[in-house]
């Protein structure tokens, strides 16, 4: 296996094909690979199949831009900056996106099983919920569980009377996305990945995926990260492409580096109440700029600096929040 290549964001995203299954690092509005989301939209990717532990601003944006054919996850929204994923909701209501709802543990275990190389993991969560109601097996109802789609399995899940305690338990099938895109604080020149703060489900998402793109605020000497291997999350041989891109998670937040840009997300959310609103927003912030560098210039240093975290706290002590 060749060592990872250090490339531009554009080059990395060019490797992703229409119809690929994607997942992402991060959690709701934290540590999302937003620069990659903008570039996926700019490159007009189509028919993506998202399988995510949870969604957030990033997947709602992909949905709004028409990149998504299938969405499988447990949640989408913008935390306090926007009540729900309005693009995704509209496309689901209009039946423009096929969706499969899961519990959080289910979505997590799909990737954890994929990461461990087993076909399923068992869980007690959450017997009785309507995500498990056969009437809501949307991929099944669409006839896609017939083996014709390499990303869609035979069963949404299995209820198994397990012999050890004679109780019902759910078997949740593994998922192995084609790509995981993850934004982190630091990556070594040879691909060793360090995440500062919460790791969320990054390790499961990355290890389940066939290919990985790591976007980092900074590329640093390997030797520096290897001085403290207990603090690192991933060795370089899981990584295909490395991109160095400061502020690349904006408008989502990055522990120890910058806060989510709440007003920016809230403005985005407000625009997404109609397709026209989103299209206009995308025209300004995605298609209206050449690349992420121009996007940052458009935001301006004053706005960005206000988000910067205080190193003693891990977050900004000056940001106006209330």
């Amino acid at each position: 296996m060749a060592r990872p290549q250090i490339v531009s964001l554009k080059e990395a995203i060019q490797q992703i094909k229409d119809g690929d299954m994607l997942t992402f690092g991060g959690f709701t509005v934290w540590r999302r690979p937003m620069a990659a989301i903008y570039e996926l939209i700019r490159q007009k990717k189509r028919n993506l199949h998202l399988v995510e532990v949870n969604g957030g601003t990033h997947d709602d944006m992909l949905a709004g831009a028409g990149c998504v054919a299938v969405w499988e996850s447990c949640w989408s929204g913008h935390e306090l900056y926007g009540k729900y994923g309005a693009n995704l909701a509209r496309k689901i209501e209009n039946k423009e996106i096929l969706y499969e709802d899961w519990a959080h543990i289910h979505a997590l275990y799909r990737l954890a099983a994929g990461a461990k190389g087993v076909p399923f993991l068992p869980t007690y969560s959450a017997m009785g919920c309507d995500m498990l109601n056969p009437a809501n097996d949307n991929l099944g109802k669409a006839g896609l569980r017939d083996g014709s789609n390499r990303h869609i399995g035979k069963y949404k899940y299995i209820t198994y009377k397990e012999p050890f305690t004679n109780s019902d338990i759910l078997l949740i099938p593994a998922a192995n996305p084609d790509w995981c895109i993850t934004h982190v604080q630091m990556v070594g020149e040879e691909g060793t990945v360090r995440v500062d703060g919460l790791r969320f489900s990054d390790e499961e998402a990355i290890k389940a995926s066939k290919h990985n793109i790591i976007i980092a605020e900074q590329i640093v000497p390997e030797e520096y990260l290897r001085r403290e291997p207990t603090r690192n999350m991933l060795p370089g041989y899981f990584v295909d492409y490395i991109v160095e891109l400061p502020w690349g998670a904006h408008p989502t937040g990055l522990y120890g580096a910058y806060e989510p840009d709440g007003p920016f997300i809230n403005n985005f959310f407000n625009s997404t109440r109609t397709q026209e609103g989103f299209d206009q927003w995308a025209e300004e912030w995605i298609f209206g700029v050449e690349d992420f560098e121009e996007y940052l210039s458009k935001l301006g240093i004053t706005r960005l600096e206000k988000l910067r975290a205080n190193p003693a706290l891990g977050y900004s002590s000056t940001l106006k929040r209330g």
Partner: protein
Amino acid sequence: MENKKKHSKIGEYKPMDLLACAAAREVKDGEVVFAGTGLPMLAIMLAQKTQAHTAVCIYESGSIDGRPIDLPTSVADARCSYQAAVADGLMDAFGQLQSGRIDLAYLGGAEVDKYGNVNTTFMGGTNGKRLTGSGGNTDIHSLAKRSVLIMPQINQKRRFVEKVSYITSPGWKFPHGPNREWTHKKEVYGSAFRGGPAAVITDMGVYRFDENGEMYLDTVHPGFTAEECRENCSFDLNISRVKGETPTPTYEELELLHNVIDPEKIIMK
């Protein structure tokens, strides 16, 4: 100072204050509490500063026993990890939940029914208005020993229903099996049964669940009547067991909520 432990009077507190205080009082000292974004964060932080000093709060993002000095605005907020015992990830948090380590959980919902089934996915069923989806709501509600729902009720009758239009998170009874017969949770979960909904706290009252898993009014907030609580429900609420008024916030609790926990007025606007 001698005034601190006294309860405030109507007009001296806002509905949100009482909601937060009533929720905080559900925590016992030493418990492990699983909380979500918003009011639950206020409630656990208030409990830790009043009757439950050694209670511990964990978030599904993987932040374990944080000691935030500034109110977090999401469970993945950097503020959650401040002075945390452990900052790891979802496998840890949900593993603790599934292995029965969570004593109490705070949740919200768009709809709740008389068995404590919760909906956060679709208003009006799968052809209706799409919401955010489950997130951890369903896992936590189904696997915590006790879960406490915090919801607005005044003029929100449509949120308190006979039967939720989509069961995101299963309560005490729900349709089960090939014939989808209403079955008690204990029967379905068997050896994996850990508990279920313990209370629903609204801006009108505190509700609990009887032996049969049905919701009843336990205490009514000052200024409301039991009858008004029933009128703000779409189902026939049992008000026969109401044991009196919900204690109002103490002056200490109000001081803590407004000046210590949320001085930025993020939730306590």
